[in-house]
């Protein structure tokens, strides 16, 4: 299976003739792009799509990525032409859109136990950055200049990067032997420089931070804030809320929890919820309901903008539709089944799972095998492998999250793929995959000699 590049099918150069339109020196001379007809393009993209694994072709148990089924109807809802409005429309003329945004703000606040929610951050990492900026604005408003953010070593890389982008020093927190926050290390890390502690709960290997109330007290006593990374919220829906645990700020990963499609890398959305005390710092604008209808307003001490406009609208619509479709009992059931699936799959896998009890995901260890090689071998068994070699607290980790959408038969298939790949010889796993359309791809050569466009390819490629 191989599909030529568009540029290999056609390359057409048009001279830009701007006579009567613009002075010649304001325009480019020519433009070279593929000039193909619709049937050719339809085949190109159809074939390419068939060369792509997706959650509608098979299970996608990437730990901490929460790849669940994306209901088809939300696409239709988002494509409603009445919803295709410009962000500079007057509020009075888009009451429907504002009503949906307001509804989603409320849904998310209720689900997270938060008091106010901004929908503007266009992705989870943007949500983290937004949340940290809010924390910073809060401290600054009190004349309290703090320089550190504490983050567990097992946290997503974006936590570190977002904190750094906001100008903070990162204090990395080791985990204890149970796989949870090391309370002594935390005690040692907290100081009057602590702006916030960023946590996810259940944590990256699916364990609930049982000391969360004590942790919150410690951070709060030191004047710091508690930030909740929403990556694992799918484990808790209707059973526990970050706000009730003492978190002050959280972001929601709508693709992970509310089934907005990941789109091969995005778009996402990273709404941020905060407790009352921090609401005044949220980005502008927010939506509120008044007697005259919905209106946009700027929070009193807003940090300003984190997206040029209002974030990823289409994604927010899909998240709203998903939440409204499931309702309380659907959301609670999603979590229950996600946890059930993870536990069942773990029980069927021959690999050791060193920590527990876990919830929606678990970190198996490939032991003395290379987890990445085992994963490549799983491709030969027709499934997508788990996240590998992360977090580092589990050696050769295979971080696995089947989500609620897999049935028992699918989990049994996955377990078989795990177990057979794990049992295969070193030679087999090192040369895997062999049954996929592309064989093992050389990552090193790609980075050593970057060829990032068709213009960079030689004629022999």
């Amino acid at each position: 299976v191989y599909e030529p590049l568009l540029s290999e099918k056609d390359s057409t150069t048009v001279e830009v003739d701007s006579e009567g339109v613009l002075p010649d020196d304001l325009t480019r001379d020519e433009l070279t792009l593929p000039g193909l007809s619709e049937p050719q393009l339809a085949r190109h993209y159809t074939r390419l799509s068939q060369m792509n694994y997706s959650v509608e072709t098979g299970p996608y148990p990437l730990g901490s990525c929460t790849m669940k089924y994306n209901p088809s109807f939300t696409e239709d809802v988002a494509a409603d032409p009445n919803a295709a409005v410009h962000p500079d429309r007057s509020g009075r003329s888009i009451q429907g859109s504002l009503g949906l945004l307001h509804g989603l703000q409320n849904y998310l606040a209720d689900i997270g136990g938060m008091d106010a929610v901004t929908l503007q951050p266009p992705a989870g990492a943007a949500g983290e950055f937004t949340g940290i900026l809010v924390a910073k604005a809060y401290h600054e408003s009190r004349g309290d200049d703090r320089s550190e953010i504490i983050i567990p070593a097992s946290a997503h890389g974006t936590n570190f990067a977002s904190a750094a982008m906001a100008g903070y020093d990162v204090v990395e927190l080791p985990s204890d032997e149970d796989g949870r926050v090391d309370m002594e290390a935390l005690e040692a890390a907290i100081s009057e420089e602590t702006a916030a502690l960023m946590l996810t709960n259940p944590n990256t290997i699916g364990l609930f931070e049982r000391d969360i109330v004590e942790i919150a007290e410690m951070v709060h006593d030191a004047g710091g804030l508690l930030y909740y990374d929403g990556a694992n919220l799918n484990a808790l829906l209707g059973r526990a809320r970050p706000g009730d645990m003492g978190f002050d700020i959280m972001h929601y990963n709508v693709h992970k929890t509310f089934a907005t499609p990941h789109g091969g890398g995005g778009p996402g959305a990273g709404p941020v919820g905060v407790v009352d005390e921090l609401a005044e710092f949220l980005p502008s604008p927010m939506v509120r309901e008044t007697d005259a209808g919905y209106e946009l307003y700027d929070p009193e001490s807003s940090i300003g903008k984190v997206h040029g406009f209002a974030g990823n609208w289409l994604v927010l619509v899909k998240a709203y539709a998903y939440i409204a479709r499931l309702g309380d009992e659907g959301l609670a059931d999603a979590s229950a089944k996600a946890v059930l699936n993870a536990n069942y799959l773990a029980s069927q896998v021959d690999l050791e799972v060193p920590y527990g009890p876990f919830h929606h995901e678990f970190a198996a260890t490939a032991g003395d095998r290379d987890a990445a090689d085992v994963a490549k071998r799983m491709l030969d068994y027709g499934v997508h492998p788990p996240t590998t070699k992360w977090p580092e607290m589990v050696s050769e980790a295979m971080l696995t999250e089947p989500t609620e959408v897999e049935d028992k038969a699918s989990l049994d298939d996955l377990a078989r793929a795990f177990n057979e790949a794990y049992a295969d010889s070193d030679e087999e796993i090192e040369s895997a995959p062999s049954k996929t359309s592309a064989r093992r791809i050389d990552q090193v050569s790609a980075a050593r000699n970057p060829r990032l466009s068709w213009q960079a390819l030689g004629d022999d490629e």
Partner: protein
Amino acid sequence: MTAGNGRRVGSPYAPHTDADEAAMLDAIGAESAEALFDIPEEVRFDGEFGIEPTDEQELRQSIADLFAQNDDLVEFLGRGHHAHYVPSLVSDLSRRSEFLTSYTQYQPEITQGFLQVLFEYQSMLVELTGLPVANCSMYDAATGLAEAALLANRLRRGASGHRVLVPEHIHDGRLGVLENYLDGAEMEIGEYPMDDGAVDVDALADLVDDETVMVYAESPTVRGVIEENLSEIGAIAHDNEALFCLGSDVVALALLEEPASVGADVVVGEAGALGLGTAYGMGLGIFATREKFLRQVPGRLVGVSEDAADMRAFTLTLQTREQHIRKERATSNICTNQAWVALRTAMHIAWLGPDRLVNLATDAVTDARDLAERLDDISGIQAPVYDRHHFREFVAHTDQPAPAIVEDLEDRGFAVHLLDDHHLQVCVSDVNAHAADDLVAAFEEVA
């Protein structure tokens, strides 16, 4: 599992039969799924969200009813969020679940399709900008600009300052994002003045100094003006060892001077004008730059490699820039991006081909010129305010108070931008040109 009325109880997207659930619990050795939760009593949530489950049919109807409350206005709006007609092909093929419901391409062997599309997207941006490196997306133009400033700051650690210069005419959202991104890096923003809607080159030259790490200019500007002195602006920046960052959009790039040829070090802007449609400000951020800055680029890059059978293959590359490897030392925190929008934009560019793309851009100049002329003919309106070439949009002066005019137009079914007491802005393109006559007629009534 279904309730007596046939509605599936719980999540409609969890497929478990009662028998399967029982077998699974048995294998685990648990009493119930509920028993698997290890949540201390003190933080257990016993309340309700109060969200009623709704079946698909009813929900689609209720959301459609909600959206129907939006007034049906013909929008002559732009200012950074533009749309052109998106062909059916793009909507149809981009919805294919293999594209839409896939994850980031961490396993390239089974995601060659999406990787190739992103590689082709990068290549199209390379052609449009003339710069050899384009990433496969930022969130939007604003975050692209902010990342460009951070890149400039990282590169110029030797400089004596951390100032970024931006034009007087800049979109609030772009400026606001820039401020937030620069805050953590302790950078500052300076503004340089415009002259008749374009860069005041002399004033800019005076302002640039060795504290300046980057000069940002736009063409077209937020007010639709095509900048005539890009090479000079680039030279001013370079003379002061600052980077020159150019903001544009994917359609304008097909017609206007090639950024590489005017000295642009980074090109940012919106690409969502193709492929996405009007989406309440959702976008697709361009980020293209020079080869020498490659390892400082934020966001994802797709490169070519070979597989074990020596076949050409695509893969995400240079991931050591990214936060899952480099954590707080990553070039950016961006992880999830706008890949699917990039796919749609690439499809749209391919559907247009070079000639129709150039024509679309050419129309953006002539349609704006024509509409401005027609409004200028109306007593009480002067358009365009700036004696410049325009792209898609232009500012008009109104003798009567502009707020009232904008509101009157809205009552007549048209949306235009209000700038200030006597200025408004109008944007025209293929999606609203059919209503230009009606807009002119409405202006005649309200001006």
